[in-house]
């Protein structure tokens, strides 16, 4: 066993892909310097500045360069330093990358990976802390990956780079430097397969990214009261492993969805809709969503801490769906 971190696992997966395939190139602001979080540290030294290319602060055009290079047979990995700046690249992502295969009648492929990172918790303020993954999940033609652990980040990165379609790879800055034990080279993780972190028979908790650990913390606290929660990380939002989630709900009859993004119009709503349709007769209570309130992310420490969903919020939601005494509405 060796110790790694989420960001180290991402970087190592990039290096393995670059070593295995000359068509893999890395583009983005300061990527040859390693980037602000060291996600590309050492790649330029190892593979050269032709393949690890610093770019100007031109997110839209740099994303488009990746689309064109992908159409020409390369496997570009383009970094958007903060998911907040995906807004600047949305034309390229939504109108060009996502639709090229479709609009060309299958002639074009866009095998690119857009790496970015989101989430709050570092006092970054409203323009450097957002969780915008649900926007991207709404665009047909894009795949959206959002790992919660180092080993999944590594395994999903390998699959994302090999994927023939554009994949947005959403990392979480608050997870970057958490330590994790790994055993050898992490195996590829197929896109579209959920991971069940904890099994339980009373309640299903679907959680993404940083919320997985909070859901697990909540599950431990619930277990002390004799309630066994199953915790599932979909790992990829698109395509979504509907079967794992609905099969779990059919056994537990209760569902909570936990995400860091604002709840309104979000991923949790989509899961709730899918599950109520697929497993309506199995549900014993309305699906609960736990997410951020419908405001921008505040920068002031106490406000930001209060803004983020925590294990308490998950426990409270569990008490509500299970109609336990003392549940707070």
């Amino acid at each position, binding site marked *: 066993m060796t110790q790694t971190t989420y960001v180290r696992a991402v970087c190592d997966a990039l290096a393995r892909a670059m070593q295995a395939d000359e068509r893999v190139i890395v583009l983005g602001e300061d990527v040859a310097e390693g980037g602000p979080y060291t996600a590309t540290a050492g790649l330029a030294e190892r593979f050269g500045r032709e393949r690890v290319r610093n770019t100007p602060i031109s997110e839209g055009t*740099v994303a*488009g360069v990746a689309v*064109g*290079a992908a*159409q020409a047979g390369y496997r570009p990995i383009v970094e958007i330093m903060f998911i907040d700046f995906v807004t600047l690249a949305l*034309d390229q992502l939504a*109108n060009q990358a996502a639709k090229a295969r479709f609009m060309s009648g299958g002639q074009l492929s866009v095998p690119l990976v857009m790496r970015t990172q989101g989430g709050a918790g570092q006092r970054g303020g409203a323009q450097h802390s957002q969780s915008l993954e649900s926007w991207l999940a709404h665009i047909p033609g894009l795949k959206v990956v959002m790992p919660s652990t180092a080993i999944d980040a590594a395994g999903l990165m390998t699959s994302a780079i090999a994927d023939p379609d554009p994949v947005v790879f959403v990392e979480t800055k608050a997870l970057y430097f958490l330590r994790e034990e790994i055993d050898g080279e992490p195996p590829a993780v197929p896109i579209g397969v959920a991971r069940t972190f904890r099994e339980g028979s009373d309640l299903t908790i679907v959680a993404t990214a940083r919320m997985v650990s909070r859901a697990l913390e909540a599950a431990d606290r619930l277990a002390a009261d004799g309630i066994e929660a199953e915790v599932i990380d979909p790992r990829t939002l698109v395509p979504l492993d509907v079967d794992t989630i609905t099969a779990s709900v059919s056994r537990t009859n209760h569902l909570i969805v936990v995400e860091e993004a604002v709840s309104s119009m979000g991923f949790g709503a989509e899961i709730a809709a899918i599950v109520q349709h697929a497993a309506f007769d199995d549900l014993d209570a309305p699906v609960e969503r736990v997410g951020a309130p419908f405001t921008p992310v505040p920068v002031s420490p106490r406000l930001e801490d209060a803004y983020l969903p925590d294990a308490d919020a998950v426990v409270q939601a569990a008490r509500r769906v299970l109609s336990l005494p003392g549940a707070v509405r």
Partner: protein
Amino acid sequence: MTRVDRQPDVAAPDSASGTAGLSAADGLDLLGTMWRIRALEERVGQLKRADEVYGLVHLSIGGEGVAAAVCRQLLASDAVYSGHRAHGHALAQGAPSDRLMAELMGRDTGLCRGLGGSMHLVDLEHGFFGATGVVGGNLPLALGTALAAQLRGGTDVTVSFFGDGAVQTGAFHESINLATLWKLPLVFVCENNGMAEFTPRSAHTTVARVSDVVAPYGLERATVSGSDVGAVWDAFGAFKHAARGGEGPFLLECLTHRRRGHYEGDADSYREADEAEWERQDPIARLTERGIADGWLTPQTRDSLEAQARAEIDAATEFARRSPYPPPELPAQLTCAQDGAA
């Protein structure tokens, strides 16, 4: 019905060299290509009015010379991107007229199986990576294929067609900056018809010439009359030759006359007709005149080129009409790869 609202300093410069770089064979090829585009576009206009061609349709009548003089100097191994006014570029680059027409008519035999339509033509077999309906949207993609060519080595070039309206997008400025920084083998070809949709260039910017917009970046650039096919041929030929040698990027601005409205169905009420201007600017008429004067064209040959082109487009139209519409399951099949292979 049309009048180009040109500022005095953007009057089309006439090429002193005329068709100096054009052989008789090249001249005939270009004239034939231009007639094919003209015949296609006129028919598409008719079919649009008859509701046989669907969607938002932008015709390139008046711009045939640029499409012909650029694309007829390219290979299928090169990469060409275009914007929303792309029928002529696709045809000149080698797209078969029958499959092109079938695409415009939404048929399964179309270049893109009917899923692209007028603004999103792609013909990868001939290096036509594609058109886009987003003004300026394809400029960055052209940098991507040019980067791929640079990394691979070799002599492939990329051409990006766009109108003067795209010059006011952020993507244009970002793309010029990055392409010059990376010295990409790329020729930006701007068709400056003086109009961005309904309004003249002077309503959008204080910089009349696109070649002046990019001056600070230091890339080599030229402005020619897009109605003077020989001038486009010569200027593009020089840039293309240098780009094949690994130089670049370059910007070629072609001043053209947009004969039709912005789109088919546009009442074009914002301009006054100027038939005399059209007669001066019609690139087919100008090359015809030149060919007869230079002795490589006879009136009979001219007539036969037009007749061949119109017969080809008649056949293409009939092919498209006979073709089936795409099956209903096609959209779901082509949203993502089905077999996991790129």
